[in-house]
């Protein structure tokens, strides 16, 4: 298949269920809200090594936040509900509670909730106080700067992790330029995050390793330098660099939308080839076919 001259491999991305939450962080300034959101979502590229995957969904205008201050919304995903609850407490506690002028709110609607503020309140050492407004409980935790306000319960929902597109180019400049364009287009979709640095991973992995201690290792079939060395390669002749963009989303529709926008943007930015990663279809319940993802795919 071809799109704007870019070859699109007739394959699919294999995605998995993962539990997600949306965290709204506000602060006195856009800068401090951004600092808190970056810290909250730091070191969260992959559940394999970080126990969760997280990213900033978007900046929020003062009119969009519960307290009328500038803010940011972040999404955080983990393998199960309990793990997500632990990561939320850890990360809100270490990265938002500590950050000057911030407050932290649940940003997701849903019946199923986990306790976050209700755990963090104990930092107040007995001086904490709660307020209930419109059916939601908030905790006021006294801190040296003033007061940290955090919502007690955060909604969690089953989302989709592992949506992806793989972008191949003749060299690093060509592949990275296309990947940057794709990541920028995908980040505009609500309800998704791209957890890797700048949204782009250069080190896609395969399951397992020849070393028993590792559960994942380099995706040798997509390493251009190993093209002449490995028993099977997915790197066509003339390709010198490959990047992967991983997408986690609150819904399958949002992940599909992000993949579609990324595919179009990568093709528009001159990628030689676009593909997607899967495990043969035997592991993940969600198969997102590149065919039919965007209009104009020929062949």
């Amino acid at each position, binding site marked *: 298949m071809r799109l704007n001259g870019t070859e699109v491999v007739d394959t699919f991305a294999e995605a998995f269920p993962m539990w997600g939450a949306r965290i709204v962080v506000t602060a006195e300034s856009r800068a401090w809200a951004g600092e808190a959101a970056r810290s909250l979502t730091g070191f969260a590229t992959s559940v394999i090594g970080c126990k969760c995957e997280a990213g900033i969904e978007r900046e929020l205008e003062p009119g969009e936040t*519960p*307290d*009328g*201050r500038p803010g940011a919304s972040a999404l955080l995903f983990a393998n199960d509900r309990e793990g997500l609850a632990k990561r939320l407490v850890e990360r809100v506690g270490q990265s938002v509670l500590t950050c000057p002028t911030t*407050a932290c709110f649940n940003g997701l609607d849903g019946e199923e909730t986990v306790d976050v503020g209700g755990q963090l309140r104990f930092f107040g050492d007995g001086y904490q*106080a709660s*307020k*209930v*407004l*419109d059916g939601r409980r*908030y905790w*006021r935790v006294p801190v040296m700067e*003033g*007061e*940290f*306000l955090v919502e007690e319960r955060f909604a969690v929902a089953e989302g989709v992790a592992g949506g992806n597109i793989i972008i191949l180019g003749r060299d690093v400049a060509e592949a990275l330029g296309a990947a940057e364009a794709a990541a920028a287009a995908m980040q505009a979709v609500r309800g998704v995050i791209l957890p890797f640095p700048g949204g782009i991973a250069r080190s896609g992995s395969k399951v397992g390793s020849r070393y028993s201690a590792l559960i994942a290792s380099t995706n040798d079939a997509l390493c251009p330098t190993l093209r002449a060395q490995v028993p099977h390669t997915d790197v066509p002749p003339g390709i010198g660099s490959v990047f992967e963009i991983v997408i986690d989303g609150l819904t399958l529709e949002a992940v599909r939308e992000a993949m579609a926008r990324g595919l179009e943007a990568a093709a528009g930015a001159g990628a030689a080839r676009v593909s997607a990663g899967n495990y043969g279809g035997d592991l993940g319940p969600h198969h997102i076919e590149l065919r039919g993802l965007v209009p104009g795919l020929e062949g």
Partner: protein
Amino acid sequence: MPLKLSLREQPAVPLEVEGLSPDRLAGLGRAEVEALPVWHGNRRERLADLFAVSGDGDEEVRVEGDLRRVKLIGAGMTGGRLIVAGDAGMHTGAEMRGGELVVEGDVGDFAGTAMRGGRLVVRGSAGQQLGAAPPGERAGMRGGEILVHGNAGDQVGAGLRRGLIAVAGSVGEAAGLRMLAGTIVALGAVGARPGAGMRRGTIAAMSELTPLPTFAYACSYRPPFLRLYLRHLRELGLPLADEQVEGRYARWSGDGLELRRGELLILESGG
């Protein structure tokens, strides 16, 4: 057309209409509504003896007439919407648990006492002991919201345990007397001795006041939670300026005769 109850004439003695609420009237036929019992002084009478009934029972009920001597309108209601087109008597909305009760005029004393949920909106003014504890009980309102667009009398939120009381005009003496928790927001003048004997909770005042000697000044700051409350109240129609929503408040902790875990938050001029 919503169910409409029009009081034929002001009763000579107080009329008690406990149970006159949308949730209890919903699903009743006209004859059943007309046959509901009310207490006119010490006499039990039919509702239709005192009210003209029109419209159909649904989620909204409208009550009209000179209702200043009609007590317990909307008391104990759990849902739906009840509109009082004019003034209402004592105990209006007492022990409410849900729904919305809108009084377009004034309400008498003890409105919203022992309330547990829902929203009571008073477009006029309220009497004494708004959202307070019933006589002889320690705890007052335990949930829900009371919004008064006019003034309120003495002992607003006395014994308040949970919930929000907001008064756009002035409040009388001893607001939040012996309150246990919850929030009182006073946009106008505040009478003497606010928060006397309070254990926990918040009284936010937008006018200058002198705290009791048993309150101690802590600091001046912008309480993050108060922005949420004030924005919420502004959305509900109370006249709150940006300077109040975003302003600096002096925090006084008290009452020192109790736990000293309550607070007076007093807006600083130019804050």
